[in-house]
Structures are given as structure tokens and as C-alpha cells.
């Protein structure tokens, strides 16, 4: 009888411990899921544009491509530069926190004029992306992309 009570007691303790472990595991999984959803939704919502520039041999070469499907800086020779613009317009009810992420080989040549800023509700902002071709640039096409994240400013 005593052994049965002891055995039940130990099994009860094991069960409690198992429940605690499962609870912790569930909380961890839920946290991972929430973070994954938050990050993935920001990636889905980000405005993504390809960036490209064709560096050419010669002096003072400026070839323009003003199409608006990507940030195409056209043809530029060394020591030349160009600025293209992306307009942001806030028509929602909350202020937005804007973050710019550049990727690719071209990101070393391109500089946005602002990053990590707040766009108040109802206002517009203009992001200037300035590219400067250094004297050491190779004559080739540089590619990359820019992602503009827009997060609601909750606090």
C-alpha cells in the first residue's frame, strides 16, 4: 500500500514536471510563431525595388532611364553621379516608422538621404537615392535592391 502511494506520488510529480516542460515548450513555440509572423508580414509589406547602374568608360557620360519600375540609374561614367527619388505618402491613421535596407553590389555606391525616420500620418516624404561612381569603379553593371519597410508607430 505504501509502495503504491509512493509510486502514485512519483508518477504525479513526473506528470507535473512533464506538464511544466510542455507548457514552456508551447510558450516558446508560440513566441517563435509570433516573431515569424511579425517578420514575414513586414517583408511582405515592404516596398521592394531593383537597383541598377551601368558604369561606362569615358568622361561625363550620362545615359538616362526614367522608367519607374525600378531604380535604374542608367549609364554613368566614373566621377559622375545621379539622384533618383522615391516618394512616400501616408494616407493611414497612424504614423509610420520607415527603414531602408539596401542589398547587392550597388549598395556600396548608393546612399539614401535619410533612414530610420518617422512619417507622420497624412504627410509625404521623399527619399533621395544618390549614386556616385568612384574613380576606381569597374566598367560593368552593378545590381542590387532596396527594401523600404513601413512599420506602424504604436508608441
Amino acid at each position, binding site marked *: 500500500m505504501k509502495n503504491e502511494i509512493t509510486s502514485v506520488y512519483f508518477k504525479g510529480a513526473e506528470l507535473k514536471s512533464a506538464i511544466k516542460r510542455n507548457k514552456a515548450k508551447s510558450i516558446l*513555440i508560440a513566441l517563435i*510563431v509570433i516573431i*515569424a*509572423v*511579425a517578420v*514575414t*508580414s*513586414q517583408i*511582405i*509589406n515592404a*516596398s521592394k*525595388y531593383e537597383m*541598377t547602374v*551601368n558604369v561606362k568608360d569615358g*568622361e*561625363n*557620360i*550620362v*545615359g*538616362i*532611364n*526614367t*522608367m*519607374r*519600375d*525600378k*531604380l*535604374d540609374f*542608367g*549609364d554613368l561614367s566614373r*566621377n*559622375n*553621379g*545621379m*539622384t*533618383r*527619388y*522615391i*516618394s*512616400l*505618402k*501616408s*494616407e*493611414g*491613421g*497612424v504614423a*509610420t516608422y*520607415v527603414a531602408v535596407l539596401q542589398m547587392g553590389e550597388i549598395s556600396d555606391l548608393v546612399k539614401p*538621404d535619410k533612414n530610420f525616420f518617422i*512619417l507622420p500620418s497624412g504627410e509625404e516624404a*521623399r527619399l*533621395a537615392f*544618390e549614386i*556616385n561612381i568612384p574613380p576606381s569603379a569597374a566598367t560593368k553593371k552593378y545590381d542590387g535592391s532596396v527594401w*523600404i519597410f*513601413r*512599420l*506602424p508607430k504604436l508608441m
Partner: protein
Amino acid sequence: MRLKKIFGFAAVMTMIAISSAMFAAFEAHIINVTAHIENALSVNTEPVAFGTVFPQEFIEKDFQISLSDSFMDEPRVDDVKYVIKQKLKACPVHKESCGPACEKLVPDDPTCVEDTELETPHNPTGWHYLSLCPFLSKNNEEGDGNLEQNDTSHPSYYIDNPPAGPSENDSCQDPGPDATGELSKDVLDTTDLWTLDLKVPPVEGFVGQDWPEDCIASAYIVKNNNTTYGCDLWIEVTDISLRPET
């Protein structure tokens, strides 16, 4: 057991994907921030530097605008119409201490002036160069592909009437409309060569005797000597025409 884990993982990933899409749609509705790339672009005019100049000097510089290789490869589009606008040039600035726990922005070039409500560059830094824009002209005389001329020059404020060189026949005029240009694949006009010329105005109080009487007005004279003047040139595209579908 293994199968159970795989199903569980697949279920979690599916839930993440669906929840992300739903949350993204909801967030986009709440934030409602639209982004678009603009037609206008600004060309870095550093290579078109006149350097140190002297009053009444005449200087020319060339610059070229053409269709890029990527535009030429694009079968959907044909013509680009643009206008060359002139805007105040912003001065680069740096932070300077103005006392304990105090910092202010000051221009790198001390001859820059502070922006005002009426005079602010397009990308303001708080300071801008005195304007060189009224004294610049942009001329395009060459033919355009199969056409004679489809560009419009912006003439100089200074009219050099015959005989060539400074004379009492010379005069000044108010600036005309901005220069416009057109590039077209169809008529083989893919490059425009512009000549940027600067007739350096005299400084107030030091006007040469050969400066035309017609040009004594304050619009054609600068107040400050030993000062940096600047002007930003903007190539603003006004129209892109599409190729008709065949």
C-alpha cells in the same frame, strides 16, 4: 512519431504563412503608405564646375544627355521628353558646438546663406549657395537624328550683338523658359549635346566701363565678391511615349 513531427512542422509553417499574409494585409490597410519612384532625376553637376571665374568672363562647358543602354533595350518605350530645370544648390553642412550641450549645423563653405521660406533648395540642408542659375544658359544647336532640331535652348541673359565681343550694342534680357529636349529611338536621336555657358556678371561697385548700360540693372549684377555661386540642374522627364503594339 517522425511523421507526426513532420506534420506538426508543416502545420506550423502553414499557419505562419497564412497568418503573415492576413496580418500584412491588415497592417497595410491601417498604415496605408504608398511608395512610387519618380520620373525626375537629378544629375550630379560636379563635373560641370566652372572653378574660379572673373567678372565679365565668358566660359563654356559641355554636357551630354542620352538614353541609357537599359532604356534602349526596353522594347515598350520610345521617346523621352524632358526639361532642364534650374534650382538652388544646397550647401553641405557639418555640426559645430555652440556651447555646452548645444550643437548647430553650419555650412562647409562660409559664403553660403541660410535658407528662407522663399529661398530653399529642393533637398534643403538649411544653407544654400548664392544662385548662379540666372546667369547660365543651355544651348543645343546640333541636329537630332533624322530631324533637324527637336530641342529648345535656354538662351543667355547676355545678348552679344554684332560685332562679336563687348560692345555698346550688347544688351541683357530676362531669362526665358527652361530648356527642353527630346530623345527618340525611332528617329535615331538618342543623345543630346548641350553647351552650358556662363557670362560672369560683374560685382556691384566694380562694374567695368564696357559692361552695357542695358545690363546695369541689379538682376544682371551680383552683390558679393569672392563668393561661391551654385546651381543644380534637374533633368525632369515630362513624358515617356510607348511603342505602339504590333
